[in-house]
């Protein structure tokens, strides 16, 4: 087991020494008091997250943990170069599959895998997007294994969420524990909304100098509605729903109190099939009729572009290292987790034999839904999954159970190690940028490896220290 704070038993890693000293001087009742204060503050700013299927209520606080996860700057530099390299290659891949399809003709990825993928959008064939960028906002999930190495677990290129927690967690820490920031040189993340706005503005149609940017939300029943509202407010742009927008002459307009205003860039937090009922699902009431035509005509920028899903699918993930070599001529800086693609008969046979040791995921799944964690699953759960896999093998991938690193976390009985992962957010406009840090998610139950907020995980502030 790799612990972020402790090396050998009792040995503290250098970058955690000051934090450990601070922790040891904190009386438990002060910690408890701070925790209540944090809860109150989060309630007041309205940070909530809807948990689907949770009967206790559709909204709740994501538990916030006051012990930060600290990443030394030399490790961060590698992570930063690694995720930028990855997102650059993924953007090249997206451009390629909607244009020349070099990678398919070279046989690096089977053409059938890409072209029969349900997220591949024929509507995007031949469409040119500003700066050839398809994925303006990427959330790359990274874990540290017990060998101490970082691995990329997943690329999220559709509508990755969680960045609002990264920002709010930092605010909370500065408010509750200002003394800690005197002991560390924590690199700032507060400028994320400015970087996001810059990336979005760079996605404006040609010739638009002062683009109007909006955030398009499916509405308040979406689990990430808080984040949509938060980001719009932080960037100083309008938060809109489909009914606020309309199309005239293949231009997008927004109803405002002072008439109609042209919209140049849409940061959509709505999945492709719902975007335009005239082009995709006719029953969608969340989309804007005519949006696709406006997009194809080059009159509006959409972030992320339509059709990015084909690149972030879990069955495309195994090919990302090859994409990096193919497009960039470089070796991948960050490793992939070994992945068995169950559509391949030999991989399927291997996985079915070792289900109790493996993690099995649906290729289209997200949010921790539809997965099997072999080592903690019951015999019944494993058998049920075996049947699901056998009836649709191509729907699944399998990976070894990683031993995610742990980080000390406040729990009921004091401080104890809990598993964590990390989601840095990469922003691409004319170039790729990211703020030093990301969202650290923590599995609050002892031994649990599931960190997803939708599965009841918590979050921590993430510090990159110089």
């Amino acid at each position, binding site marked *: 087991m790799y612990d972020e704070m402790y090396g050998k038993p009792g040995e503290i890693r250098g970058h955690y020494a000051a934090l450990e000293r601070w922790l040891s001087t904190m009386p438990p009742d002060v910690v408890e008091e701070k925790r209540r204060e944090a809860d109150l503050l989060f309630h007041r700013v309205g940070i909530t997250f809807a948990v689907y299927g949770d009967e206790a209520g559709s909204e709740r606080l994501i538990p916030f943990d006051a012990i930060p996860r600290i990443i030394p700057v030399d490790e961060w530099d590698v992570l930063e170069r690694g995720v930028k390299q990855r997102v650059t290659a993924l953007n090249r891949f997206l451009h390629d599959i909607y244009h020349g399809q070099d990678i398919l003709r070279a046989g690096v990825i089977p*053409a059938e895998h890409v*072209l*029969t993928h349900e997220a591949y959008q024929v509507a995007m064939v031949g469409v040119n997007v500003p700066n050839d960028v398809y994925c303006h906002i990427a959330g790359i999930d990274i874990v540290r294994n017990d060998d101490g190495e970082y691995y990329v677990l997943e690329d999220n290129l559709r509508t990755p969420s969680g960045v609002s927690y990264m920002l709010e967690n930092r605010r909370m820490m500065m408010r509750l524990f200002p003394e800690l920031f005197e002991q560390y040189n924590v690199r700032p993340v507060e400028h994320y909304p400015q970087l996001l706005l810059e990336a979005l503005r760079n996605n404006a149609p040609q010739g638009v100098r002062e683009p109007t940017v909006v955030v398009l939300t499916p509405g308040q029943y979406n689990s990430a509605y808080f984040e949509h509202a938060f980001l719009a407010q932080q960037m100083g742009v309008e938060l809109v729903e489909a009914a606020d927008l309309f199309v005239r002459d293949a231009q997008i307009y927004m109803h405002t109190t002072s008439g109609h205003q042209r919209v140049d860039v849409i940061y959509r937090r709505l999945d492709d099939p719902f975007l335009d009922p005239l082009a995709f699902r006719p029953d969608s009431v969340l989309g804007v009729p005519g949006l696709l035509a406006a997009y194809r005509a080059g009159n509006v920028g959409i972030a992320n572009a339509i059709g990015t899903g084909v690149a972030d699918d879990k069955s495309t993930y195994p090919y990302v290292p090859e994409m990096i070599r193919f497009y960039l001529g470089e070796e991948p800086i960050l490793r992939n987790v070994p992945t068995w693609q169950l559509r391949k008969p030999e991989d399927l046979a291997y996985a079915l034999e070792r289900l109790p040791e493996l993690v099995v995921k649906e290729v289209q799944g997200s949010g921790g839904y539809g997965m099997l964690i072999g080592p903690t699953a019951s015999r019944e759960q494993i058998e049920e999954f075996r049947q699901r896999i056998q009836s649709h093998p191509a729907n699944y991938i399998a990976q070894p159970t990683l031993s995610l690193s742990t980080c000390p976390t406040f729990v009921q009985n004091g401080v104890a190690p809990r598993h964590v992962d990390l989601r840095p957010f990469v922003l691409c406009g004319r170039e790729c940028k990211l703020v030093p840090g990301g969202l650290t998610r923590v599995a609050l139950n002892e031994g649990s490896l599931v960190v997803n907020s939708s599965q009841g995980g918590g979050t921590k502030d993430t510090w990159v220290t110089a």
Partner: protein
Amino acid sequence: MRISIDHTTHYTYEHPVRYSTQYLRLVPRTSHRQRVLEWRLDTPARPLELSDGYGNILHVLTIDKPVEEIVIRSSGVVETSSAVDEQYDDEPRLSPLLFLRPTALTYADAALVEFAEQFRRRAGTLTGLRDIAGAILGRLPFQPGVTEVHSTAGEAFAAGNGVCQDHAHVFIACCRYLGIPARYVSGYIYSAGHVESAVASHAWAEAWVVDRWRSFDITNGRPAGAHHIRLAIGADYLEASPVRGVRTGGGMESLSAHAVVTPQ
């Protein structure tokens, strides 16, 4: 053969419609099989001309002042060739693999899977596909009014009869299930004897056989030929439909569509 087409779509509303957007695929393209000699599209407001991902000509019509009716008239003259199954000069960059993906309207449910399975052995051949087309017409005799525009292949198959759109969807669902790329074609057909006919709007299918697209007019039990005029292709009706729109206001809507196809 020279064929003239006059196609009118007429919507009337109970109350004024406040806003309406339509995607129109009402203008044929010239290809090896057909030459568009003249064509005009009359709409209540000036539409914007684009193309869609399949290379179809797409007009986007927006009406944002109150109207009680919308009339769209599309007319012209097309010269067709009697050569059948000639490879069309459609978007050359579109791989046939794109037409292996099932859509909501062309999903093969259990009954369709069972039906398609009996053709598996010769499914990759022209005669095998003709067998499928023939069997579909046998199972679903032509009868208007049973299915509606949003009926799926499975629903049409269960209903036991259908129209050209249903025949095409069922055929496409079977092909894709059997691993053969297949796509939907919307267009017109000239039927001798019908001076004026509401069924002149037509739909058929194409399947990828060895190295080219072959056409299957399932409803008429033959390939598309000199009597067929092709408007648009797509994965299913929704992607190739001549008129697809949404509106705000208007109350009850009544639609009359009328296509007159005559030889010159």
